[in-house]
């Protein structure tokens, strides 16, 4: 009995010592102020977790809560909704909006991009063509007055002096200097189907995500095309995970640092020019295989907007994910950090994404914007860091980490500090 008491005291001393150490380190870890770590486990290399979220809805001045597109541009953030365009002035916090009565050519804004050279905002209109917003005026192109191949525009991207529009019947490229339009369909591009869904540009390459035709790469210098299709050629299976695009029905592309990120309704992918890697919800932190959009932050980090939350591949080399969801009952936010099949951390937050049906993500320095079908969110990235870093773990309500999937630590709900 005496030995038992002595052992318990030793363990207590060790535990107190470790807690003090972790709390000390907590001060420099960049974790937000709303809570503290109530149980300090051993330090571990972990990704950055966004824990401060601000929401924007119609109550704040958005024209509509169904947010299809977001574009950060300096002190402004442009927001495309199902019924209007909005601009958030980050310095004043004011929101200005435009509907059809204000000159917006069509109510549904599905895509946005900014020409950094001119400052013009290019607006993809879902069923209304393409618009340019400049100097307070909307100019409008559609399939009856221009070379826009179709009015149902899903994606817009600026490439040098050109504006690309991904439409339901092909892609159009508009040279804003010469006024020349070029149309790309199955006639002059390797489109097995012409149903363009997403378009992105970086480093001399335009990538089209095409429903039924995988991804097409357009080399701006040579004006040549390269196609990426699902190698097994079958709709109902993915034969091998890493042999190519997981499915030909792609929804979005994002090219950065030489890495192509792809979203689809059947899973996501990463391509480094030589190797493909497929991602599915059943084995990663992806909340769902139904990917509405993707945005790559760099070669190792990508944000996937899905119908069941936002999945972030935070560190490609270690396959570490952060999954952001919202509790539909309490409306609290939740971030779950996983590595492979192991859950490392669960963070319970007062706020997270405003709805689990996520449609778009946008980077704004260290901050993130997430468009959902029920509002817009801005996640504040104070102390954001890339990849993994040693820091204390957040701990979650007990029982939340599934047996057999956890890192084996005990968990508690984080508490507010201060």
């Amino acid at each position: 009995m005496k030995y038992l008491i002595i052992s318990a005291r030793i363990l207590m001393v060790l535990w107190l010592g470790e807690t003090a150490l972790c709390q000390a380190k907590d001060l420099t870890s960049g974790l937000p102020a709303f809570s503290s770590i109530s149980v300090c486990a051993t330090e571990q290399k972990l990704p950055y977790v966004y824990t401060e979220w601000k929401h924007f809805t119609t109550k704040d001045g958005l024209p509509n809560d169904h947010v299809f597109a977001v574009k950060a541009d300096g002190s402004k953030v442009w927001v495309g909704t199902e019924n209007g365009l909005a601009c958030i002035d980050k310095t004043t916090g004011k929101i200005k909006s435009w509907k059809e009565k204000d000159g917006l050519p069509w109510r549904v804004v599905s895509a946005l991009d900014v020409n950094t050279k001119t400052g013009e905002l290019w607006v993809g209109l879902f069923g209304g063509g393409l618009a340019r917003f400049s100097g307070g005026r909307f100019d409008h192109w559609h399939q009856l007055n221009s070379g826009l191949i179709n009015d149902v525009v899903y994606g817009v991207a600026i490439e040098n002096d050109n504006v690309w529009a991904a439409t339901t019947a092909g892609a159009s490229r508009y040279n804003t200097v010469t006024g020349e339009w070029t149309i790309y369909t199955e006639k002059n591009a390797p489109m097995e189907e012409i149903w363009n869904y997403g378009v992105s540009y970086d480093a001399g390459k335009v990538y089209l995500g095409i429903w039924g035709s995988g991804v097409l790469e357009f080399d701006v210098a040579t004006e040549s095309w390269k196609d990426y299709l699902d190698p097994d050629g079958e709709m109902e299976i993915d034969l091998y995970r890493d042999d190519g695009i997981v499915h030909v029905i792609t929804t979005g592309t994002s090219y950065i640092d030489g890495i192509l990120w792809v979203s689809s309704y059947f899973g996501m992918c990463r391509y480094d020019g030589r190797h493909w890697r497929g991602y599915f919800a059943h084995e990663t932190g992806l909340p769902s295989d139904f990917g509405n959009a993707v945005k790559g932050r760099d070669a190792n980090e990508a944000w996937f907007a899905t119908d069941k939350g936002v999945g972030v591949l935070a560190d490609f080399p270690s396959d570490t994910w952060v999954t952001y969801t919202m509790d539909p009952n309490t409306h609290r936010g939740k971030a779950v950090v996983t590595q492979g099949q192991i859950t490392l951390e669960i963070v319970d937050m007062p706020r997270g994404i405003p709805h689990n049906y996520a449609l778009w993500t946008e980077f704004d320095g260290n901050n993130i914007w997430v468009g959902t079908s029920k509002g817009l969110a801005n996640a504040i990235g104070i102390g954001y860091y890339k990849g993994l870093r040693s820091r204390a773990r957040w701990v979650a309500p007990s029982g939340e980490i599934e047996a057999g999937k956890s890192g084996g630590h005990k968990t508690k709900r984080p508490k507010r500090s201060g």
Partner: protein
Amino acid sequence: MKRCQFLLLMVFVVLAGSCATRKQARLGDQITEIDAETLQLLEKINSASAYEVPDLGLRKDYNYAKTAQDVEPFRHVKPYKEHFLLQMEYTGPGRAIPEPTDVDSVKIGFIGPIMSTVSVATGGKSHEEALGIKMLQGARLAIEGANAAGGYLKRDIPFELVVSNDNGLWGASGNEIIKMAYKDKVWAILGTIDGANSHIAIRVALKAEVTMMNSADTDPTFIETNIPWVFRCISDDRQQGYLLVDYMYRKLKLKRVGVIRASNRYGRFGVREISDGSRRLGNPIIIEMAYALGTEDFSLQLERLKDENLEAIVHWGDAHEGALILNQMRRMGMDQPYFVCDRCLSEEFVEITGDNAEGVICAYPWNPTRKDSRLERFYEDFLKRFGEQPETYAAHGYDGMSMLIWAIQAAGLNRAKIRDVLAYQSKPWHGVTGDIVFSAALDDVGEVYLAKRRKGEWKFYSREDLKIPQGYIPPRDRVSRPTLTAQSR
């Protein structure tokens, strides 16, 4: 409390049942019948907030599209992932949108090829108006029947059909869906026929969040898109192809089969399961020839086919071309059995081919000669309304529109709930085309038939009627199934 809720529910069921019985007797239809299962479903979806996804019990299939093991793609390899086995959910906030009170009619969209213009599929003159007009007639009959029975019963206002033509270049069907979803504010849409137009339409429906019921596009890939808003109430070319393949190889023991098809999406995708199935059963298609729509002389294709000493020829394309090909084949002394797709089972085909039609075998998505009081009543009503007999596009259009009307009556004026009550039905819909059974992919996987032309009439046969053997259909998904052994191959 639970007992009270149960009693209340039972009262609802009884009231709904008696109400439905009265309507049934008067209408002879099921569009106002709301069963206990649907009432329970409504209880869940009506109480869901904008943020919740109610647990409605996702449909799970263990085999995709009733595919026999020996015609599965890459059947000797365990795939990494198998799609379409678990029903897609709608996870958006739409269920919480309240029903509007300021409507004076309940609009339902129709999109189909009804006016002659140019065609996406051919780059020339359109060719599917004859089918689209029939589909529209079927849809109209369903709407008129519902209005005769009181319209949208909850508000005592009529149903209204908003009609759009999809025959246009530049993806016109997408623009039409946008117009219907945002300007006309329809509650659901029926359409369309052409595979390309259908794909364009459903992508728009997904973003606009409106149910699309398809009653005429048999392209297998139409439903293979993971869109939770899409339904199909006609058996597709995959199901028809499987039956034809089984008949040709397992029953007739043919070895050398050739294909001639339209060089459009319908021909290309329609014949794909036959080509794949033939190869997987060890009898690869000897030759596949395509022709441009509007071709009148098929000598080029038929001479190549003739040179191959074929035992049978399969045609996948429209009735007009199918008939011309058959006549030219016979003139060239090609007397092989002629297998055709469902589009060839038409008056036009028979008129052009005359006696040559004898012996033609057609894959068909339903049996229009079966004894069924509902079907007979449909024939009578259609004849009375339009002065002509309905055909397959009219019948499926009627069924598709009836299902939408039923869903609106049950769910109310909320697009997400309309989608839900259709998506989570566990029982088949008793349509005029037969029982419509949805798979997890919300596709009709009901029985398909072979139609044989005998003595100037089409005779319809089920798989069972003709004792057509079928390959083993495993009761487990491919990923968790034990790897094939040499013996089981």
